[in-house]
């Protein structure tokens, strides 16, 4: 039982008990997620790359870690903060969370006043923080002061493919690529969640995973592609000028679709802007209204940036809005055949009811 400290950029400190891997001054943007189950999916979601994730659900680790629930090759979050770790036995075939974190080299804190931290972030906004043992205070404080802001970090490089991959194998528990695909997506990987590919496979689509550096020429030269799909991923979309250019050059020549970061890139490619949110939407309970049908879905969300509604060109229509704060949750431009959503229709973790949006994607991918 070793004490450790989380210090935020604005000076606020929280004390906890360290578990998982030993702490070596991990720093990153501290964000909270209000989902209840799903810690494994959250930890392995590449969109959390570079972030210290705090879960508001107070008891974590209850059902262990199962080989079939990873959203990527392993944990992508920098560190985990929770109120209480479950240390008891887990079901056969599963691994205790503590051990999984230790094996993955990811440190974590429990016994933290996560409620106070949530309220602090709500009040003062998401910001950088650092984990350290009391004796490393000085070094930690220096590192925190010098640590780049999330808007200054390239977080995509470490979580995306370097070379094109045809129909990646997702692992047990996920679908495999269809034998006779009815669509073929060029899918740019900014740190994609496996469940997105899984949703496409299950609808009969083949995918070619492309590195983030891919250019419009390369994409347009590909054979048999029905649509361009931009994935989710970590960090500030404003840093991705090349990606925005690539998307802009493809729009009008291919159907272009995206989720989360992909949606933000599309926003900019269409001439809009993105802005950083105070503390973002991270959870499994966000209501999103479909402006076409009037129906509201409860969705999984994980974003700290969003499309600025006022910046959108007149030809762009709003597909979804957040029913709580009115923020833009999805776009479409029919004449150019572009559509994108900010939230996560693939869920994982979260409610599955918006998954039908992949049907719309399939329908418009041609």
């Amino acid at each position, binding site marked *: 039982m070793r004490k450790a400290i989380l210090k935020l950029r604005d000076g606020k400190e929280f004390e906890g008990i360290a578990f998982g891997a030993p702490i070596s001054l991990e720093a990153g943007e501290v964000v909270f997620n*209000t989902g209840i189950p*799903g810690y494994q999916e959250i930890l392995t979601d590449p969109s959390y790359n570079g972030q210290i994730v705090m879960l508001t659900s*107070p008891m974590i680790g209850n059902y262990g870690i199962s080989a079939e629930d990873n959203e990527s090759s392993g944990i992508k979050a920098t560190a985990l903060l929770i109120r209480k770790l*479950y240390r008891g036995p887990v*079901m056969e075939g599963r691994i205790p969370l503590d051990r999984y974190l230790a094996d993955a080299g990811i440190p974590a804190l429990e016994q933290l006043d996560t409620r106070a931290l949530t309220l602090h972030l709500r009040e003062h906004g998401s910001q950088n923080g650092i984990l350290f043992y009391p004796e490393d205070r000085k070094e930690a404080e220096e590192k925190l002061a010098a640590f780049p802001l999330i808007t200054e970090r390239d977080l995509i490089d470490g979580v995306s493919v370097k070379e094109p991959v045809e129909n990646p194998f997702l692992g047990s528990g996920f679908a495999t690529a269809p034998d006779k695909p009815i669509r073929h997506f060029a899918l740019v990987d900014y740190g994609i969640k496996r469940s997105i590919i899984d949703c496409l496979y299950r609808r009969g689509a083949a995918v070619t995973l492309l590195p983030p550096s891919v250019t419009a020429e390369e994409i347009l030269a590909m054979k048999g592609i029905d649509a361009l799909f931009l994935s989710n991923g970590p960090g500030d979309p404003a840093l991705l000028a090349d990606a925005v250019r690539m998307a802009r050059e493809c729009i009008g020549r291919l159907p272009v679709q995206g989720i989360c970061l992909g949606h933000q890139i599309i926003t900019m490619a269409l001439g809009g802007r993105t802005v950083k949110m105070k503390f973002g939407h991270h959870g499994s309970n966000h209501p999103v209204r479909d402006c076409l049908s*009037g129906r509201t879905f409860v969705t999984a969300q994980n974003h700290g940036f969003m499309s600025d509604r006022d910046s959108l060109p007149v030809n762009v229509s709003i597909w979804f809005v957040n029913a709580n704060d009115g923020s833009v949750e999805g776009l479409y431009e029919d004449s150019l055949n572009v559509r994108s959503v900010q939230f996560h229709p693939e869920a994982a973790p979260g*409610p599955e*009811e918006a998954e039908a949006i992949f049907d719309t994607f399939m329908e418009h991918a041609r």
Partner: protein
Amino acid sequence: MRRDDIHHILVIGSGPIVIGQACEFDYSGNQAVRALKEEGYEVSLINPNPATVMTTPSIADHIFLEPLKKEYIERIFDQVGPDAILSTMGGQTALNLTMELEKEGILKKYGVKVIGASAEAIEKAEDRGIFKDIMTSLGYESARSGIARSVEEALAVKEDIPLPLIIRPSFTLGGMGGSIAEKEEDFIPLVEKALEVSPVHEILIEESLIGWREFEMEVMRDSKDNAIIVCSIENIDPMGVHTGDSITIAPIQTLSNDEYQRMRTASIEILRAVGVDCGGSNVQFALSPDHSRMVVIEMNPRVSRSSALASKATGFPIARISAKLAVGYTLDEVQNEITGASVSCFEPALDYVAVKVPRFELEKFPLEAAALGTQMRSVGETLALGRTALEAINKAFRSSEQKLEGITALDKSRYDSDLLLRSAHPLRYLAAYTAIKDGETDLGKLSRITGFDIYFLSILMEMKELEDEIAAGPMTDGLYLKAKKAGLSDKHIRTLTDEPLPEHIIPARHYVDTCAGEFEALTPYCYTSYGEEDEGTGLGKDAVIILASGPNRIGQGLEFDTCCTLSSRAFRKHGRKTIMVNSNPETVSTDYNTSDRLYIEPLTAETVLDIMRKEGTRDVVVQLGGQTPLNMAAELERNGAHIVGTSLSSIDRTEDRGLFSELVKELGLRQPENRSASSIDEIREKAEEIGFPVLLRPSFVLGGRAMFIAYDESGLDEFIAKPEVTISPESPVLVDQFLEDAFEYDLDAVSDGESVYIGGILQHIEAAGIHSGDSAAVFPPYKSKPEILAQMREWTLRLAKHLSVKGLMNIQFAEKDGKLYIIEVNPRGSRTVPFISKSSGVDLVEAAVRVWLGEDLVQQGLVRERGSWAEGRCIMGWAVKEAVFSFDRFQSVDPALGPEMRSTGEVVGYGRTFGEAYAKSQAAAANRLPTSGRVIISVNSKDRGTIAPIARSLQELGFSLLATKGTARDLFKEGILADVVLKTQDGHPNIVDYIRARKADLIINTPMGFHSRKSDDDIRTEAVRAHVPYTTTTSAAKAAVEAIRYLQENRFIVRELPQGPRR
């Protein structure tokens, strides 16, 4: 969008409190009525339960305390003309009634639309066969089962599915009549019983999933197909224990995201398929221990006990939103009142856990091992919130007020812990803890034996390690904080260590905000937890703390909660802020907008003192929550609390029998001869002095716990042998003269210390010796001499002045041979306050609150002259209060009434005549008084004189008479001819055979004393089983005659409760 095709909505309440249907429906109905009025609809309400908040004048536009029967509803359609009926707020009772109105074409005849759940959806959800087909078509598994309408069909089902089998009757509430057939020979009797209790004579026989994990989803869905899960609930007790009897935790803890989402998606698909599209439902699932099979158990297309729990656990007001959906709104159109910043189409995120522990009455209704099953047995429940499961479980056990200071090992001299471990029993979780305390470390094995998930056993292991650590010492600040964070009370810690505790830590205040802190909350409510940052600031000394009554139990329930709710309303109306403390999630008092601040916390002195310090106020109201607040009042006062109203020393003078006797003597009043005995020998001695019969009781009890009438020496022995009776100088036994055949009265009053306003005097219909809570009673008194009543008023004034009573007081009187006796004085709100307030048109609680705020009764206009009394009158003509029992849940319990209270609820009947009022009270209590047929009379020798005129009247009303030998002989002497029937011990056919053969329509059977007690027991038990009305006193029999006379006229009259205060 708001529906404009309807204008006037009738809300159906759930009627009296019975096991399986309690005050959660007052809470939901109350929310619904308010939500509908907000939208500008005219709202009518029918509920014969006078204890409810919902029937308080001004809540609905038209209030009818009338029986929940189609004939009375039809009259309401006639009289006030609603064009819609909300079916989903009154539990199974309201659903069944709606179905009946629909099937008989009554709704169509009056052009009334069903809103909430359509009759079609109700049918699909409730008819187990149809429901199962829907599950199959959706691709979900349900338990293997078959429907049977006869024993033969049942046997055919059994061919295909092996024992054990669950047998469930269709359309019953709380799983009533359900059972588990483990053995071949049990099968047919259980099938017969289930067929009998099902109103449609249909049962479902299904494979046993005993030992599986059980989960529930509280779902809401609207007309746009928006659907949300308000709350997921995991039963800690495995399948095989009714969910109402299970310890539960919210949200679900042991499911991965995949498993959870599978259940979530299934729940929504089920609502869609069943057609619930404007309200809430509860869907129950079972999961095999290895998580490989998920089976859908059932759904309830209405608000329920679980939805009340879910509302309190999350802050999401399901009933309120259901009402809005019922009138056309969609979830995205309704604001979340808690945050004020989000819509209701979201799923609450919890950053705490909510644990429910059911409250049983093991002493009143003993349960054998393995007694729990498909039928609910608990009488109440308690909710605790904590940041961790261990903390919340410890708090919840403490909140349940069952003498458990949190998770504790069982006393092995009292319980067979190993047996309980293997049994569906309320104490099974504690039996598991006992095993762990005894050194069991193989949690896998323990899980297989008990059916508890390893996760919940690990929590017990954590508890054990903590207890060991405390016991090993030393007690440090760090260890103390750790213990407090785990939910241990100071008292609990002190049982583990002799070391002095570090300085008491005041816990942090946390908000329940529906969103885990994501949004700032406008009207949150609170719980406390240790070692964390506080939210918000104290309300300061302007605020008054109201202590509510905790979990429902026999003798302390809805009535007290209503008093607390009304007092909060009155305080706020007159400009003071209120802080409510309660642990009972079923109640209106724990609704987030009843008070300025609400704490869901255990009602213990430690917690209340912490809240007092946190909030910066000293004023505490202890008069309204029954015995629970009173029991801690002294400790609160010692630690700086200011007890609002009547002083503690005055309360003591009424509670302590010795002091009370002195008081009676001092004021020149009269009470039954009484002594106090501190040893077994002394009991005999004192009984001898007073003379038999004597009434025996332990001091400081509510609801007549362990109270006993001894007619002779052997009776004394029986009392002494009771396990709950302890005799010592510290807890003496009270030996009182028992006034046999006396008339008893209940008087409720408010005093300002000088004057008294008597709300009303109730006369009991049952004779003395039957607990006041169990006795039918009438307001105003129906047969008493004016001078006796005058004496009561005069004595009341004398007592109030002398004790400086400030606030409510209740006095019980008895009259025997023209002499008045005072039985007891309770200087607090009583069970009858809501009843008297409604029936007299004066809100006694508000009058008390105004006294506390400094406005005396003369200033209030209730009493004309300072130092005198005034009295209310029944504004409804006659008001009869009838007690309602849940005996049909406990087949082995003798339903004979006695000094120990056993009723779970009450109803009222209002009428121009006594007969009308009594008839309605019986109809409302579901006592089916016959209008023709056969009456069986068997009365003891003392009653032979009074029975003759009753028997004659019954004959005149066209009944045939059947009497036991002695009774028949005495009737014959009076010129009344009755056929003779054998007593049970005298051969066949006897009384019981007649009842079984449905050849008895009314039974008058007064207790025969100890000699033929067994026979009396058999008769009454059989009558309860066969639903034949029975009376145990001649006065009740006489009342029944008057009621039958009214019923024979075959008119159904409904009487609207006047609105607004009469002052």
